[in-house]
């Protein structure tokens, strides 16, 4: 033992003097140089453009808070924030509930469990564009299978125009997002479930605990941390959702599914008002920064960095 400790001491000392001290920094140069040039520089420059009237192909001149003032007075923008909140909260709730359920049923031993787990992961491995186009076809008003099934079981008697009806259009987006996003919750929570000691459940069985009691008193408290972290991470991606909405409804009907990113895309790319498009992202930044700082705190504490 003493020799090992001595060796460790020597080893620490070896790292200190002279050129060796710069070794860790050298290893980090390529990555941080890239991030500085391609991520931070453009981002800061972009933020500064949000104070100008920059349009595609045009010159930028300083207009102060002009873009921001226009935005907060723009009903379409405010509606897009409301729609983002609606979409993200409903979607996250379903992903979380179904994800917990998926993890719990997969945590039970049964024949074919490994195959079931692999199969349930497939939606989440598909490219999002593929998943979204698939749902666009399933919900199609002409030839779509969902209308057909609903007619078969007698819930509806006429084809529904899913993407053209306000509430239903939002529902299709949520369904597509939940279908693809649930396995992320499922697999993360399952990984945590498998670390819970079986002793707790055995002790509970001896005491005659019911299934739901075991769930609420043993399972749930042990996965709370994972639920918190997974939900936070997924909330960034859900608030950030673009292609699901853009490809399914394009934001219609009447802006009823136009989430923040679709609004920003239309403003920046279709109306060519780059400055105002960036201002939309800048206004959302505080929310993202808050979520990111919560995640950082949580995950760095977990790993004792």
């Amino acid at each position, binding site marked *: 033992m003493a020799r090992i400790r001595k060796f*460790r001491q020597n*080893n620490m000392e070896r790292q200190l003097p002279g050129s060796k001290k710069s*070794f*860790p920094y050298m290893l*980090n140069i*390529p*990555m*941080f140089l*890239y*991030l500085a040039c*391609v*991520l931070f*520089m*453009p*981002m800061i*420059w*972009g*933020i500064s*453009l949000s104070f100008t009237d920059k349009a595609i192909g045009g010159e930028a001149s300083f207009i102060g808070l002009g873009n921001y003032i226009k935005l907060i007075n723009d009903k379409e923008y405010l509606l897009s924030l409301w729609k983002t909140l609606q979409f993200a909260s409903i979607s996250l709730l379903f992903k979380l509930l179904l994800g917990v359920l*998926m993890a719990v*049923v997969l945590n039970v031993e049964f024949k074919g469990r490994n195959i*079931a787990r*692999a*199969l*349930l992961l*497939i*939606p*989440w491995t598909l*490219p*999002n*564009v*593929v998943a979204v*186009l*698939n749902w*666009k*076809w399933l919900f199609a008003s002409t*030839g779509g*299978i969902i209308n*057909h099934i609903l007619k078969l079981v007698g819930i509806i008697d006429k084809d529904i125009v899913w993407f053209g009806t306000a509430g239903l259009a939002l529902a299709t987006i949520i369904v597509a997002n939940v279908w693809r996003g649930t396995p*992320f919750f499922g697999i*993360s*929570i399952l*990984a945590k479930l*498998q670390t819970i000691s079986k002793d707790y459940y055995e002790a509970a069985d001896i005491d005659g605990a019911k*299934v739901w009691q075991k769930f609420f008193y043993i399972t749930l408290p042990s996965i709370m941390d994972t639920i918190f972290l997974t939900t936070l*991470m997924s909330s960034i991606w859900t608030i*950030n959702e*673009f292609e699901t909405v853009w490809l399914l409804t394009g934001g219609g009907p009447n802006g009823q599914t136009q989430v*923040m990113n679709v609004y*920003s*895309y239309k403003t*920046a790319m279709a109306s060519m008002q*780059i400055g105002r498009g*960036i201002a939309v992202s800048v206004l*959302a930044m505080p929310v*993202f920064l808050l*979520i990111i700082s919560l*995640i*950082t705190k949580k995950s760095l504490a977990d790993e004792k*960095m």
Partner: protein
Amino acid sequence: MQNKLVTILHRITVALFLIIALFPIYWMLNTSLKTQGEVYSKIPTFLPKNPTLNNFKYLIFETPFMNALKNSFLVALVVTVLSIIIAYPTAYSISRLKFKGRNTFAKVILFCYLLPSSVLYIPLYIFVSRVGLSDNIMGLMLIYPTFTLPYVAWILIPHISSIPYDIEEAALVDGCSKFKIMYQIIFPLTIPGVISTAIFAFAMCWGEYLYALVNITDTQAKTFPLIIAGLIYGDLYPWGQIMAGSIIGCIPILIIYIASSRFLTGGATAGGVKG
């Protein structure tokens, strides 16, 4: 009695999950093998009456789809390899070496990984056009590491940390240089982690849509998500072709996913797909 009921409920739940997860995929395959006439027939058929590969043939020979697949593949491959090469030393230094600012570096990496593309796509659009790479897959190769690099570094850190310190100490005793330890001793031990992160980095680039949509308008430079999404126009969408394209687009992902499933360990790498 209670146990039996629970078991039945459990099996039903598993079955429901499987049906919901797999039905859309079965329907995609089913549609891709139908003629346009059958796709739009009054009563949808659950198996194609006259299975045909015409949708695949049309897509492969009459549209720029194959070229788009090649573009997607090139972009994803180059970005993945570069990301591993660049992110590995960073991950190594953060999990193994003690230096001032290590904590901050870790925080910056996590920050970049979580930063959504909605914040970056417009600035990067301007950046790419300034350096003259719009309408060029090189532009995408320049952009995609903004999300793959932090992801790869962040996921590799715990992988490297899980390797016992003793191995490194033994190598130091033998007089191994630090570079040698990093590349010839620790890197081979990290291979399972590297493979699973590489797969997800590849998948992230392969299916990426927003950056490609904003930066690429030239058909020659389009990636496959743009081409299949671009088939949506007019009054009657060619669903057979769109589904055929979707299936071809899934195949590489599913192949590497199945082939490497033994490396894909639980939730550790799960953040690779954002959903």
